[in-house]
């Protein structure tokens, strides 16, 4: 499969930039196009940058001439960063995906679609199976806004895949990522002055190392499979153990106070804990990654526990 031409949306994010860098080193990839309104943080050499907003219908005219055969949709926001309203997040996720698909509708060179989606679609439920497999996405009702957005995005892609049988659509369902030097939902949470938890709960959590997260995208570009694929570091870790390894102090809150206290924390500039994340901190979630290992052919190098330990030890390594 020499001469691949790849489009990456959200190339200004850590994952988009890193993926572009990795593909630049791959001789089989002839051309890389990055779409974003932000400048990529990574130093890119041969990536063609298109400055455009994914929500803008004009991207159709910009994508068609690139003659790409692969699109990596990497602009799905999991938690609004500083200065981003939930409304904007919803727009980028749902309207952005919709515009992207509409733009790709007429580009008949496209053979592969890889989406960096979220395992958040499974939700966090007290009596869910300990490990979700890919066919369990609709086992429980979609409770939060992000879950409903994720569900909607997946529906769009399923419809697109049905209409274009020649295109292989891979929906990667990522667990939260963690890694040195990358600002993620989990790292923001674990660096709060005190870490709010639900009193009396110690959920099983699962994370993926940021380097594995990027590798999984790269491997999926090379070997796409149809349908959803879970991405996570093997194994799980209890929240209590996670916070203790990070050397933090917990602030256990009784159920009804969790929401008000964490939203008050937001006012003083602390990270926002979304409704999704709050549920995750109560009931936890883990996924089964057999499809990733056996069908996509990618085995994460870091287990959940190793990913966390690596992140904890990173500042000491940097200082040495």
């Amino acid at each position, binding site marked *: 499969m020499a001469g691949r031409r790849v489009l990456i949306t959200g190339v200004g994010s850590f994952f988009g930039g890193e993926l572009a860098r990795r593909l630049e080193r791959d001789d089989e990839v002839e051309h890389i196009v990055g779409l974003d309104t932000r400048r990529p943080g990574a130093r890119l050499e041969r990536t063609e940058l298109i400055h455009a907003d994914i929500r803008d219908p004009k991207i159709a005219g910009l994508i068609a001439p690139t003659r790409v055969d692969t699109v990596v949709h990497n602009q799905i926001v999991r938690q609004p960063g500083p200065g981003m309203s939930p409304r904007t997040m919803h727009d980028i996720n749902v309207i952005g995906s919709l515009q992207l698909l509409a733009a790709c509708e007429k580009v008949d060179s496209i053979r592969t679609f890889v989406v960096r989606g979220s395992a958040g679609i499974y939700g966090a439920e*007290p*009596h*869910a*199976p*300990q*490990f979700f*497999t890919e066919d*369990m996405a609709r086992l429980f009702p979609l409770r939060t806004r992000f879950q409903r957005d994720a569900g909607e995005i997946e529906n769009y892609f399923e419809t697109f895949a049905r209409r274009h049988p020649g295109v292989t659509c891979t929906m990667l369902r990522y667990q939260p990522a963690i890694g040195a030097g990358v600002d993620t939902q989990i790292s923001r949470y674990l660096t709060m002055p005190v870490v709010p938890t*639900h*009193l*009396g*709960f*110690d959920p*099983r959590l699962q994370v993926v190392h940021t380097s594995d997260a990027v590798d999984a995208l790269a491997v999926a570009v090379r070997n796409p499979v149809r349908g959803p694929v879970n991405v996570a570091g*093997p*194994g*799980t*870790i*209890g929240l*209590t*153990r*996670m*916070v*203790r*390894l990070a050397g933090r102090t917990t602030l256990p809150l009784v*159920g009804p106070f969790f929401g008000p206290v964490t939203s008050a924390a937001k006012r003083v500039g602390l990270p926002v804990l979304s409704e999704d994340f709050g549920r995750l901190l109560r*009931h936890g979630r*883990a996924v*089964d990654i057999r499809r990733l290992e056996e069908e996509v052919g990618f085995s994460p190098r870091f287990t959940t526990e190793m990913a966390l330990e690596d992140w904890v030890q990173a500042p000491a390594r940097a200082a040495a």
Partner: protein
Amino acid sequence: MVGVGPALGALRLVREGLRQGLDAPEALIRGASVLPRDTRRAVERAARRLDGDYREDEWGFDEEFADLVLPFLDFLYDRWWRVRTIGAGNVPGHGRALMVANHAGILPWDATMISMGLLREHPLPRYPRFLVLDWAFSLPWVSVAIRKVGGVAASPFNALRLLESDQLVAVFPEGVKGTGKPFRERYRLQRFGRGGFVELALRTGSPIVPVAVVGSEEIYPKLGESASLARAIGSPFFPLTPLFPWLGPAGVVPLPSRWLIEFCEPIPTVHHGPDAADDRSLVLELSEQVRDTIQAKLLENVVRRGPAFA
């Protein structure tokens, strides 16, 4: 027990350690240096745990924690319920196996005593994993403790995965119908669901070990229930026993009945092949066979045990 002198000395050292800017776990370990050996070990272990230095498997099972609560379970096993265990050798010493037991007593004490019976009487003891009623996992503390001692949410996917990784799994097919049955129906097995446990055993080729537990059905004699209270707290049922809820938290103390646990001959399933899991008639037949075995053993052993509270 630790005397007052060493205890005060230890506290003083802890305080000094903290003042010198040590972390809590380090200060605790320093303080423990003046305590007697056993106590010192316990404090050191607790301090390590505070530092996040403990292992849990992917299900949240924490063997060290399970060992820590053993003395309490020992007390229940020996003194409180005076448990006698028969036929522990019928449980395979290694590899996958599915134990199927009658369920009674509202809280899963029967699961803990089955574990204890195996740990004490089996030549190759191991902790079984048990499937626990879903509702327990929405409760604070309870959910944490259950996971730490080897409980998982009652989902066939969980059982399948545990058996595939060659664990010993215990299930209670009566489910909530068993725990919630009134006292006058004790030792009368309820319906065994739809035989889902047999499907799991066939699919994974695990032998089925029927387990008959006598004694658990007297620990919380359920005389009635309150549907409105159950609705209010979202539980599957709200039991009324001679002690609960009248005595408040003390009403949760189980009655000290005498127990007899018997592990019956294993029923092999591997020769049927994994596709037999879809054979309805075989599944129901095996399910009925297991149920009959347990029921017969229960009636036999109730007589053998004699009076419950003697």
